[in-house]
């Protein structure tokens, strides 16, 4: 019987398999950052162990770094200690680090793909749940805890039980203005936050094939939000075109050998998935969340649901608690919800294509007077590229704040936080209570919805914006 893509990649990385034990899986790339690694390096030191493969390890600073004054010492002493600890550990154990101020610094899941380190058929792990992002290239990529970070540092392997496989087939074409983010938010509301649990998910079908690499990364990024172990997409010409010529991509004969292998990384026609979900992209619309988990969403054209409308008691209770926390009333049209802060950025939507789309929509408009727009590029490279294209000027002229690279308000670990009761429309991935700051209220949205919301001050799509009137040159009569 044929095998699925996930099974092929898994099988290629099994170092050891035995009855009653999880598989011992080889890890091709280990990404690390300042928050989940210090205790792992400490563990190595205590046991007198070394990093087995520093040449398969890459560190960057992202979660805890400021997006203002990044050229000055970090003001918060506890944050500074954490970042300095990563620098010391990287130096001591010989790990390549892209620190704050470095041209390759940025969110770990933006940096890997943009360097060309993320390639099809690899196993990639990081002490961060959004490691699933790298699955967009046909890699098995997943987040791990600090004990596992230490395990990978010491052995370049992980013990992992073989997950089940699921196909999410998205047929049809996304309507104009509907993005990868809307697709994945629609999916999560369909499945709930636990629907993917225990599965490696393969996203496939026409709508997935038609996505750019950036869009595919957005979809795979949010795999964890419906509980999946990992999400991946079969590599194709779009993947190869994105990778060719990147600094760490194979070159010359190596490139040809790699592509030949990558072309074999597709699910065989007679392969069986343990589960399958089929969705129709052509009926999808801009989608936003109303609650406090990513599965509590509705179309932007809809309204805040009535908790009584849920069949399951636990969903009713969760909805009641969410509405109370969010300060919302059932039946309120989503478009009437007023937003204080719009956050554009994160490993979900902080890549150059995202910033281009946001700038295109916002160009010629002004940010609403009662709303602030924070634009945080996913990496220094993204920031530089955006500045080369003049996107920063468009954002600044509209009244937005143009920031340095990092995770920023996605998780509110650095100073970029919501205040209690403050409401955001955020292109990030989690709307948990307090995620973006204690008492903060988050609506997850796509890039077009974020940009339009910044202009109108209420949840909106670009269709709600008045057309920009270009100044007309009038010829003066003499």
């Amino acid at each position, binding site marked *: 019987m044929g095998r699925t893509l996930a099974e092929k990649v898994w099988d290629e990385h099994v*170092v050891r398999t035995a009855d009653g034990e999880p598989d011992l899986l080889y890890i091709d790339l280990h990404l690390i950052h300042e928050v989940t690694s210090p205790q792992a390096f*400490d563990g190595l030191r205590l046991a007198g162990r070394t990093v087995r493969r520093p040449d398969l390890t890459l560190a960057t600073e992202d979660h805890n770094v400021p997006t203002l004054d990044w050229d000055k010492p970090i003001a918060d002493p506890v944050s500074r200690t954490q970042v300095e600890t990563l620098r010391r550990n990287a130096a001591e154990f010989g790990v390549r680090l892209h620190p704050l101020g470095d041209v390759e610094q940025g969110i770990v899941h933006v940096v890997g793909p943009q360097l060309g380190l993320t390639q099809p058929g690899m196993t990639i792990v990081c*002490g961060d749940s959004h490691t699933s992002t790298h699955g967009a290239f046909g890699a098995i990529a997943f987040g791990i805890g600090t004990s596992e970070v230490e395990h990978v540092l010491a*052995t*370049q392997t992980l013990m992992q*039980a073989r997950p089940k496989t699921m196909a999410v087939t998205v047929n049809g074409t996304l309507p104009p203005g509907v993005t990868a983010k809307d697709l994945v938010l629609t999916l999560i509301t369909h499945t709930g*936050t636990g629907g993917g649990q225990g599965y490696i998910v393969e996203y496939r079908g026409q709508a997935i094939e038609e996505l750019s690499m950036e869009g595919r990364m957005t979809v795979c990024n949010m795999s964890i939000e419906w509980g999946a172990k990992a999400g991946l997409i079969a590599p194709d010409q779009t993947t190869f075109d994105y990778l060719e010529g990147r600094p760490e991509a194979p070159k010359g004969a190596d490139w040809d050998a790699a592509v030949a292998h990558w072309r074999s990384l597709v699910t065989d026609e007679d392969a069986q998935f343990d589960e399958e979900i089929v969705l129709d992209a052509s009926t999808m619309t801009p989608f936003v969340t109303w609650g406090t988990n990513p599965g509590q969403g509705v179309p932007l054209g809809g309204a805040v649901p009535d908790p009584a409308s849920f069949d399951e008691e636990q969903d009713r209770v969760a909805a009641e608690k969410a509405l109370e926390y969010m300060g919302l009333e059932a039946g309120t049209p989503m478009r009437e919800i007023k937003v204080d802060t719009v956050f554009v950025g994160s490993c979900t939507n902080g890549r150059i294509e995202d910033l281009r789309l946001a700038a295109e929509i916002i160009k010629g408009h002004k940010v609403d007077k009662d709303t602030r727009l924070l634009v945080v590029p996913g990496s220094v490279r993204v920031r530089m590229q955006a500045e080369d294209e003049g996107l920063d000027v468009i954002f600044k002229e509209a009244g937005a704040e143009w920031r340095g690279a990092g995770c920023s308000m996605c*998780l509110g670990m650095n100073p970029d936080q919501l205040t209690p009761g403050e409401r955001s429309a955020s292109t990030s991935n*989690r709307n948990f209570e307090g995620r973006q700051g*204690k008492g903060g209220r988050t609506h997850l949205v796509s890039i077009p919805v974020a940009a339009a919301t910044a202009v109108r001050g209420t949840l909106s799509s670009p269709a709600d914006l008045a057309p920009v009137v270009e100044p007309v040159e009038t010829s003066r009569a003499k």
Partner: protein
Amino acid sequence: MDKFITHTGVAAPLKRSNVDTDQIIPAVYLKRVTRTGFEDGLFAAWRSDPAFVLNKPEYAEASVLVAGPDFGTGSSREHAVWALQNYGFKVVISSRFADIFRGNSGKAGLLAAQVDEKVVQRLWDHLDDHPGATVTVDLETRTVKAGDGPDAIEDSFDIDDYTRWRLLEGLDDIGITLSREEEIAAYEAARPSWKPATL
């Protein structure tokens, strides 16, 4: 890691589903570079509410948490497990755990005992009737027990065989894997040369 055989302790009911890792410990509390001291951030947003279960005197010594489904969703932060342990919890009982949280628990020595949803409800009812009551979680027999007499609760819980064995023996995963050095080296020798390297 200490061996885990059985534990009896005061059980606290946490009547919420989808208790995500940002609720277990918000990101601002993740800045320490040690494995200790995270108890200050445990359920930080809720702890300021005097009515929150852990603020009630009868649960002051709680070491078993009985939570709703989808406990530990979200981030991979092992700090969520450490925060529970630093606070004094030895066991979390739920009908469904997020994968990464369950994995982290097994590595760090916190027992994540998965039971049927009905068992969670029965335990909650029992704890409502007897605030401050204890629950026994026996890893050897994989059973959860509470109360006595005709209303006693005794049911099984799920945990994978390998994690159970490691917890019972108190074993360190890295030590086990390092004993496979020859197999790892043999695998490495056969890796394609075009695979990327960072150095």
